[in-house]
């Protein structure tokens, strides 16, 4: 994997990305704007499950309002994230935070879809406590992803000897 990252870093595409000084901050800024849309979309879905917002409409309306924004912004993030990774492949591949983040993104997407299924299966207007607790957990996963994203820049400080920097 580290070999692949080193090779990727030496490709013309990667070198091209590295050579444009404003590209990385631009992509990171777009990435953070999208965090706003993704995180608040999930927050609204979770708060609706808790009956804290949009109680004047059924859950499915809240889902239909925010799910398209969630998936669209997440797609943009996948793209900006991919270009950023191609631009700095060794930094990403040697960061434990990066790999944990990738795993948690899969968990987060599957679990938010799971929430949607769970709530759709409920007959009455009250959402059971188990589903509400699960919703909190899903939100926590998304929050952890934001922290891991920032922690990529501080892998040694955060993870000390666990950082993959020591295993290259």
């Amino acid at each position, binding site marked *: 994997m580290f070999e692949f990252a080193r090779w990727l870093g030496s490709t013309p595409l990667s070198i091209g990305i590295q050579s444009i000084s404003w590209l*990385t*901050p*631009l992509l*990171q*800024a777009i990435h*953070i*704007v999208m*965090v*706003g*849309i993704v*995180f*608040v*979309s999930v*927050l*609204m879905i979770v708060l609706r499950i808790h009956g804290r*917002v*949009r109680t*004047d*409409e059924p859950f499915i309306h809240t889902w239909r*309002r925010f799910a398209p*924004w969630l998936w669209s912004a997440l797609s943009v993030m996948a793209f900006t994230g991919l270009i950023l990774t191609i631009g700095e492949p060794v*930094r990403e591949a040697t960061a434990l935070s990066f790999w944990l983040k990738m795993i948690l993104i899969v968990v987060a997407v599957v679990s938010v879809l799971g929430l949607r299924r769970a709530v759709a299966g409920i007959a009455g207007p009250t959402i059971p406590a188990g589903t509400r607790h699960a919703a909190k957990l899903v939100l926590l996963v998304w*929050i952890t992803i*934001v*922290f891991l*994203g*920032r*922690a990529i*820049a*501080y892998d*040694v*400080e*955060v993870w000390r000897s666990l950082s993959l920097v020591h295993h290259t």
Partner: protein
Amino acid sequence: MSVPAFVQAIYDSGVAEWMRQSLKAMPFVESAHVLAIATVFGTILIVDLRLLGWAGAHRPFSVVSREMLPKTWVAFAAAVVTGALMFAPNAITYYGNTAFRLKMLALVLAGLNMAVFHLLTARSPNWEDNAHPPAPGRVAAVLSIALWITIIFLGRWIGFTKGYDFSVPEDVQFDFAQ
């Protein structure tokens, strides 16, 4: 006290010294700052899109606004606290950084835009149930979205332009720019 003296006092404060010494604090404070600004932007975007009639237009504006803005303020308070914790250890450099100054200016403009909207535009009667509010409301919404995106961009630009003005402990890769 002059502004540079005030900035120096922040730089010399115990909190600033603690942030400089603690290597683990910065990533956590920065992450919390990203989460806070993301929540500010996302919640304001919901209100602004409603104001434009582009999303959630079937719900009255005041309902959307009352639902979202308390969350915006909590997140904004968190952004101010975490922002101050990032500013303090590197205060003198931040103070002289153009992106930082422009970000503060954009924050003031976003605040003024919000104040004008709530004190003047939103006071005019009988429009808030409309899917498409009158022009001043829509202008405020566009300005708000543009200013908050600008604030996020400038925030990221600070990290790439400022450097740092204190010595880093030995053996530590401490790169704020990343």
